[in-house]
């Protein structure tokens, strides 16, 4: 192996270490964990995972998370598609200012919005539902989706639209049956980033939920504080949250470089 390849190799080892450690913990009993330091489980156990898969409060947490992430992705991308099209193809009153305003929302600290969101979503009766978090996350994800999609759409020449109209397509016929397949990669990239941000964001997800829609991430922090550090359980819960992310990356692995290449993160 060329010498310079040691650099990414060591970096990847560095990245995998804490993940390995988490997995390591998840297969240990709390006794073994607290008993001493060991690099691998001497008493391998699946008990922690069993608890999670059988206890409703735990696995509901995962379901709740996936629910709002999926809702948010669909909502963000669906709303962003026509908007991105407009920005890409048309000039209209206030278009530059609108675009800029959208981007500034990406710069908003979630902490600033925590309390106001709590009040707002309680007021509209959406508190503690997956819709609350899904909607709240659109604040950050829609600007991102619009930005990404606009970039991809601008790469498709207007001649395509015009040809379709000449061929007799209505606007929506053209948009749904011709245009969208053409920018499929862009939609994939946008979905990826929406998923990513919604899945990892915690502050708002915690603030806007109580019991019914509590995401898994919030449940974990609860565990740590109430039952006094059931580390193995915590580790197992954490390990399971790695899976959706890994799956998604695997599916878009061929587009990762391309998506980042637009620089539109």
């Amino acid at each position, binding site marked *: 192996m060329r010498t310079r390849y040691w650099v990414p190799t060591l*970096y*990847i080892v560095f990245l995998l270490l804490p993940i390995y450690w988490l997995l390591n913990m998840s297969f240990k009993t709390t006794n073994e964990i607290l008993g001493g330091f060991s690099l691998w489980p001497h008493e391998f156990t699946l008990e922690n995972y069993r608890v999670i898969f059988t206890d409703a409060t735990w696995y509901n947490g995962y379901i709740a998370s996936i629910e709002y992430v999926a809702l948010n992705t669909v909502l963000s991308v669906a709303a962003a598609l026509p*908007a991105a099209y407009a920005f890409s193809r048309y*000039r209209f009153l206030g278009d530059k200012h609108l675009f800029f305003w959208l981007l500034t*929302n990406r710069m908003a600290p*979630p902490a*600033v919005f925590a309390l106001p969101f709590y009040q707002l979503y309680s007021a509209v009766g959406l508190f503690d539902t997956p819709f609350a978090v899904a909607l709240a996350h659109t604040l950050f994800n829609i600007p991102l989706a619009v930005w990404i999609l606009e970039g991809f759409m601008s790469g498709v020449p207007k001649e395509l639209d015009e040809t379709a109209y000449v061929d007799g397509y209505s606007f929506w016929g053209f948009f749904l049956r011709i245009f969208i397949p053409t920018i499929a990669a862009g939609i994939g990239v946008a979905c990826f980033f929406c998923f990513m941000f919604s899945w*990892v964001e915690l502050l708002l997800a915690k603030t806007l939920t109580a019991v019914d829609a509590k995401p898994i*991430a919030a449940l974990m922090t609860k565990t740590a504080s109430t039952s006094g550090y059931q580390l193995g359980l915590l580790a197992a819960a954490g390990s399971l949250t790695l899976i959706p992310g890994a799956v998604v990356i695997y599916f878009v692995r061929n587009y990762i*470089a391309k998506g980042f290449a637009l620089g539109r993160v």
Partner: protein
Amino acid sequence: MNKTVNQRAWWFVLPVVLLVAFNAVIPLMTVVNYSVQESFGSNMFFWSGVRWFEEVLRSERFHASLLRQLAFTAAILAIEVPLGLAIALAMPRRGPWVSVCLVLMALPLLIPWNVVGAMWNIMALPTIGLLSEVLHGLGFDYNYTREPAAAWFTVILMDVWHWTSLVVLLCYAGLVSIPDAYYQAAKIDGARAWAVFRYIQLPKLRYVLTIAILLRFMDSFMIYTEVVVLTGGGPGTATTFLSIDLVKTALGQFDLGPAAAMSLVYFLIILLMSWLFYTLMMRNQSR
């Protein structure tokens, strides 16, 4: 693209405008509302003008957390950007290992932020954590719950672990888009590796580096969950950055005025600095 003027395009952007306005305008209005009023008990509000703003801007506590935040962000940028760039430069430009590397590197980016905090919390636990054991083995008296220096070290290490890959991925994408002909010409001209970096790679990476720096700046300025789960803002207030301080303020007090004022100041600081950063880097580019 030759864009046509069409005011009906507003119908296309309407869903987006409504959603974002709902989430942005209404809460911000609420925050502004609170920031200029004083409340005594439920529903009794009095206009207080800029009082809360003055208080925030003069508050030593605010200054302290702002300084901590600036130090943190500076450290982050100083480490992650060069490191990410170096890793991207060292990666193979084609071949079967590329997608394996990219997938593995992207992994930390998709972990829920509290799990990130929890992972490092577990790693840093005395006696049973990998990080603390290694550091003790190397002779360091490491205890992140008591020593501010140790807490800072852990927080920074965690962030580097968490986000450097973003820089790597961006820089790598920029690198692979440089046509081979440039490297060939450099070979023919007899350029050394450093010259290739300085005259070919770095100029062509300007755009992605700008994005990387901007993003890391913004996101590190807003950091909350990971740090809270890892250190809770401590020991004491050693790692209480702006977001953490804001939430503490908002939760701890009866009157939402100060927290609201702080929120606005906070938001404005980010907007201002982002704008500054962006203009500076863009100006550099067109010079």
